[in-house]
């Protein structure tokens, strides 16, 4: 049961990058000649030794992977996360033998198939049918294997009618569907997948993710790189986090993803000013503190969608004659205002007596109302309903994440500025009744 199929020990991958040295303002001809002569000599030597030639005066070593060790057991589905350039793709390339490691060693048991890009080797001039055989062979399938699965592949890709059309005439959707279908029917012991699920339309993504889930359930080992954290958490029980080429963490996907997302965002969950003189504001109002917190702590740094979120604003009021409205404008991505809300919505607000001093306004956003993604809050103070007194742009910045695994197979983002939970009910009304 618990046999190890991939074992990486101190794995490292080094790339050498050449730099042009920063030169001073003038160059002596002698230096130039010397540099060229030395360069020529170095190049000849490299050429003779079969080493890669690198252009530039100084060479810098860059470790894309450094000292990475882990073990993966048979049948495990492991997600690999990390920022761009963290070494995820390099790791997959080493594991799938595309490039050789510079240090350490990997022991692999079983056949590895890598899916680093759908449609690798597709030729536009060839027909769909020909490309299925070509792509299958490139991915390591035998002709007999492809023949056996041919119909299944075609059905999955929904391209029956266009089988004998050159793929250059395919729509991009058809192309991607066909490419993924071939890859999805690979049957290696170990499958290495890089970000290929982000292709196609929503319906096809759903289908591909379902297929990925099937592969994992069949007891095959899957390594999965994705930026879709919802999909990753739902498909992979375990995750490995790479940061700048090193192992940052390895463990339960839920915890790792939460930690990773916490580090990722430039979130602004609280701002506080203790000095009345320098706090943002003017002669009528000054801010003391603005913050956001989830009503129940789920141990994540981001704002969970599934719990009410509390936004608090504390401020000093200096003018006893005005009734201040605290107005929150909630922006989602692409500068879209999801909604605007103000403290005046509170029925008790009108009845409050006016006086100077410190106030605290709390706004509670109900659970399962916001959509996932980054939110920014612009804070405004109004007087007499319409006149803006003070504005603080980007008072708060936070990411809303889903913390509960989803049912079903769709892990994409639901569209919409908000995602309120609606009251729905469906009931059965009986057989057809034409007289009704």
């Amino acid at each position: 049961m618990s046999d190890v199929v991939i074992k990486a020990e101190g794995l490292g991958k080094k790339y050498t990058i050449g730099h042009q040295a920063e030169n001073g303002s003038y160059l002596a001809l002698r230096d130039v000649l010397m540099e060229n002569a030395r360069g020529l000599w170095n190049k000849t030597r490299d050429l003779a030794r079969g080493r890669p030639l690198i252009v530039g005066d100084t060479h810098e070593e860059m470790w894309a992977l450094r000292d990475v060790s882990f073990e993966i057991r048979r049948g495990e589905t492991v997600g690999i996360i990390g920022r761009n350039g963290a070494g995820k793709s390099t790791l997959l390339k080493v594991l799938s033998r595309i490039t050789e490691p510079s240090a350490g060693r990997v022991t692999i048991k079983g056949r590895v198939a890598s899916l680093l890009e759908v449609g690798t080797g597709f030729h536009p001039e060839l027909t769909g049918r020909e490309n299925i055989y070509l792509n299958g062979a490139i991915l390591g399938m035998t002709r007999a294997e492809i023949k056996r699965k041919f119909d299944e592949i075609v059905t999955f890709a929904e391209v029956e009618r266009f089988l004998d059309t050159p793929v250059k005439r395919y729509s991009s959707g058809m192309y991607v569907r066909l490419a993924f279908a071939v890859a999805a029917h690979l049957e290696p012991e170990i499958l290495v997948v890089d970000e290929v699920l982000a292709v196609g339309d929503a319906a096809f993504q759903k289908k591909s993710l379902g297929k990925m889930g099937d592969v994992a359930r069949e007891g095959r080992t899957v390594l999965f790189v994705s930026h879709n954290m919802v999909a990753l958490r739902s498909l992979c029980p375990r995750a490995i986090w790479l940061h700048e080429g090193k192992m940052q963490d390895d463990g339960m996907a839920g915890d790792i993803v939460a930690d990773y997302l916490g580090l990722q965002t430039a979130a602004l969950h609280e701002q506080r000013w203790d000095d009345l003189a320098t706090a943002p504001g003017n002669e009528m109002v000054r801010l003391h503190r603005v913050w956001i917190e989830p009503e129940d702590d789920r141990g994540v740094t981001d704002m969970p969608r599934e719990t009410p979120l509390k936004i608090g604003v504390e401020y000093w009021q200096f003018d006893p004659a005005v009734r201040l409205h605290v107005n929150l404008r909630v922006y989602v991505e692409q500068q879209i205002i999801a909604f605007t809300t103000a403290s005046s919505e509170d029925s008790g607000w009108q009845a409050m007596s006016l006086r100077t001093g410190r106030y605290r306004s709390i706004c509670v956003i109900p659970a399962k109302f916001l959509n996932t993604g980054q939110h920014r809050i612009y804070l405004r103070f109004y007087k007499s309903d319409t006149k803006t007194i003070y504005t603080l742009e980007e008072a708060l910045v936070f990411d809303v994440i889903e913390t509960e695994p989803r049912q079903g197979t769709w892990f994409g983002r639901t569209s919409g500025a908000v995602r309120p939970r609606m009251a729905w009910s469906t009931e059965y009304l009986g057989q057809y009744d034409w007289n009704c």
Partner: protein
Amino acid sequence: MTSDTTIASHDEPVLVLEPGRADKHYWMDLWRFRELFIILAWRDLSVRYKQTVIGVLWAIIRPFLTMVVFTVVFGGLAGLPSEGDAPYALMVFAGLLPWTLFANSLSEASNSLVDNANLISKVYFPRLVVPSAAMVTALVDFLISLAILAGLMVFYRYAPGPQILLLPAFTLLALLAALGPSLWLTALNVKYRDFRYTIPFIVQFGLYVSPVGFSSQTIPERWRALYGLNPMVGVIEGFRWCILGGEAPLFGTSFIVSLVVVAFFLWFGISQFRKMEKSFADLI
């Protein structure tokens, strides 16, 4: 990380990836990927004949016109002797056949890795598959132009002797002669992209230093060994021996030297290719 967990070897192959580790399974892997070889060769062929309407025709026209020009220039204007009583055109064509095979193989194979960069950087397979599959197109062109040879023989009423049966062996020799330098060039091409500009030059230059338009008999005896350093000398002599019969003597000094050079280049090409192969994905 528990160090005592070892990988038990069942029926599955156990693969160890380490820097600089010589791959024991390399030749076995190459055999396992033979279907990829076939399918890549088939892809190159079908794309070639789909894109050019005169694909097949081109394989006939080009060597035929070259033969006409060489016969006129070398045989007619320069008045060089043929081999024995063989017609000059036939002698030229018997040399042109292996030369075209060699030249096309060399150009196709030398560019093959760069042309298949997207495969190299995305999937693993023994990289040797790519340049060798690229040579199949040249082989098919060669087979097509054999038809002209047959036509010429009928035209000149020149029947070949039993040694024509050895032609496949010399075809293989021509391919091997091309494979060695091709592997080296294609690997260098990955590193230094401007290397491919040398290939048309090699091909053009080679055409004149090889005994294509003339018989190698015209070379003085004492220079033959030196001349044999050009591996195509041996290959062309072999072809002429097969096609023209006993008129063209074989197994001279130049032929032996050429064989040694072919073997050396094959060894050199493969070892250079293997050495650079592991870094292809990083450089391409």
